[in-house]
Structures are given as structure tokens and as C-alpha cells.
């Protein structure tokens, strides 16, 4: 099951990468990056569910550390979601700013950082 989830995550990540590299519309690039974030989250959650915590593997016993880090992958995913949400808000603000200054949403035209 771990392998399947990781392969699903890899497929999603590569679809997102393809979209981010090949699309011209800046919002299409942004949502491709979102797909990549989701792929990473699937991998983190799968690791959290199926892989032993390092502290448990080292000792073979359920120490306090192992007990408190068994869901570390899921808490990383929470932070990824936070960063992704901030990225979308800022990214779309940049899209609006770009639309105002250049009247275009084509990433190939956005090669200058001024008007």
C-alpha cells in the first residue's frame, strides 16, 4: 500500500511538473504547482501511516518520542497546506498586479520585474 500511494504521489507530482513547465497562462502554472503540493502531501501522509518512526525503529520499543512522532508526517502536511494557501493568496495577487501593469497573463511575457 505504501508503494502504491508513493507511486500515485509521483504520478501527480509529474503531472503538476508537466503543467508548470508547459502552460503559458500564469494561473495554469499556479494550479499546476498546487497539484505538486498535493502530491507531496499524499507522500507525507503515506509515510506517516506506513513507515516506522525513527525512534521506534532504533529501540524497537514504544518510547515517548516514538509515540509523539508517529503522526509527524501528518503535521508536516498541515504546514504544507498552510504554505500552499499563503502561496495561492500571494500568487493570485501577483496575477492581478501583472494583469494591471502588462494587461497580459502570459508567463512568457513576464520576464521583467518592472513596467
Amino acid at each position, binding site marked *: 500500500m505504501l508503494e502504491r500511494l508513493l507511486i500515485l504521489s509521483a504520478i501527480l507530482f509529474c503531472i503538476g511538473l508537466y503543467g508548470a513547465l508547459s502552460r503559458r497562462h500564469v494561473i495554469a502554472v499556479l*494550479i499546476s504547482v498546487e497539484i505538486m503540493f498535493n502530491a507531496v502531501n499524499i507522500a507525507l501522509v503515506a509515510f506517516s501511516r506506513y513507515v516506522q518512526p525513527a525512534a521506534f525503529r532504533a529501540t524497537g520499543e514504544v518510547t515517548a518520542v516514538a509515540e509523539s512522532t508517529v503522526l509527524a508526517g501528518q503535521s508536516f502536511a498541515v504546514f504544507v497546506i498552510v504554505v500552499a494557501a499563503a502561496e495561492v493568496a500571494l500568487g493570485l495577487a501577483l496575477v492581478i498586479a501583472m494583469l494591471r501593469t502588462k494587461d497580459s497573463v502570459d508567463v512568457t511575457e513576464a520576464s521583467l520585474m518592472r513596467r
Partner: protein
Amino acid sequence: MENAFTEVAFWTLSIVTVGGALGVVRTHNMFRAALLLVVSFVGVAGIFALVNAEFLAVVQLLVYAGGVAVLVIFAAMITTNVTEGNRSTGTQPFAVLVSLVLLSALVSAIVQAEWALLPDDMPAPLAAAFVDTPAALGRMLLNEFVLPFEIAGVVLLAAVIGALSLVRER
């Protein structure tokens, strides 16, 4: 795999997720891409629920399928030329090549790696964390990860202020 239900659910959700994502990167209609993105996000939420991440499944629906989707649809609709705005760059063959090379590298690494899997009959304290994940996750975020948790709040505040200052009329 535990049983036939999870088997069927996994394959259905995988097909929905990957199909939605493929639709997002292939369609030329930006509005349709944004709607397909929601389909893909809901599929990912289902996968989270399948691997004992109930809290993340709900957050995924609220933040991605809710907030992010609304923002993206809004942005797709105010940008001009919605139906033809999603043309490819000239780097299409290059993008396909890079993605396929990365995919094959990742898959071969995943298949060959020797994972230290959790045993099926987990020791009771570990198994308990997967019975009540939201509670265990909440305790974890406010104990081990309390500093990143606070910093995440500051990051969100900075993002909101940054977004507002970027779109402010001058």
C-alpha cells in the same frame, strides 16, 4: 491492503485524482481547468481519509476544494480570454521529457527502496494515535511543533498583508 472496500476506494480515488489533474494540465479552457482542479482535490481528500488522516481530509476539503478553488475560479474569470488562455509554451516536448524522466526515476526508487514498515499489529500506544488522529495531531501541533505552528500563523499574516499591498490601487 486491508479488504476489498479499501482496494476499490483506493483505485477509484486514484483514477479521479489523476484524471482530474491530467484534465487540468491538458484543457485549454481555464474555467474548466479550475473546476477539474476541484475534482482532483476532492480525490486527494478521499485518499487522506483512506490512510487515517481524517483531519487532513477535512482541511483539504475546506482549504483546497473550498478556499483555493474559489480564489482560482475568481482569478480565472477576471483574467481575459478564458476559453483560449491556456496555450502551451514552446517547451512542450521538453516538459514531457523532464516529467517522464523524473517519474521513471521516482518509481524505480520507490520500488527498489527497502521501507521500514510499521508492523500490522502495531504496539497499542502507536495504534491509539491512528484511532483518534485529530486529537493526537492537535496534541502534537501544540507540543513538539508549537514553534512552527506559531510561525505558520505569522506566515499567513504576512501573506495576507503582502497580497493586500500588491493589489492596492495606487
